[in-house]
């Protein structure tokens, strides 16, 4: 596959996990959207923050 953007691949991954996680955890569409958004935001923000921490303190 020609997609080689790390950020895009991470976003696609987070989107799928958020979709399945949100639908799995909650029962109404509104709650599912909220839970999915929280999972998506958490994964994206966590990865970006961790990326910057590793930039400063490389392993």
């Amino acid at each position, binding site marked *: *596959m020609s997609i080689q953007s790390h950020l895009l*691949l991470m976003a696609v*991954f987070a989107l*799928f996990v958020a979709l*399945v996680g949100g639908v*799995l955890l909650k029962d109404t569409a509104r709650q599912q959207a909220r839970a999915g958004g929280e999972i998506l935001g958490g994964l994206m923000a966590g990865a970006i923050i961790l990326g910057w921490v590793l930039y400063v303190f490389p392993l």
Partner: protein
Amino acid sequence: MAARSTVKRSTRAAPAKPLWLVYLLGWLVPGGGHLWLGRTTKGIVFLVALPAMFVIGLALEGRLFPFAPSEPLVALAAVADVASGLPYLIANTLGFGVGRAVALTYDYGNAFLITAGLLNALVIVDAHDIASGRK
């Protein structure tokens, strides 16, 4: 107290559908357990999203790991891959998922493949809860 126990007993009534069939269907077809139990919307979401994740993982040149007892982490990854069910069986039979370790997207491919299987395992647990009257 008596009323409470009656309510508890009625919510945990004998499952109408055999659990082993829910597990088997849920494993073979991601979301199949939910579809069979009448949770159509959830089932369709799982039926689309999980195989899509699996296919993306293969397209990113991820690897379907073999069972290697001498390497526990590889064996765990293999178990996660198998949890994807029919997509795994088809890909394995057709010779997909060889993986190319030097590919830039190899690790992403593995992440997609393994996560698709693990999420399907969670979906099967959810189907179990529904079938046994806990949800």
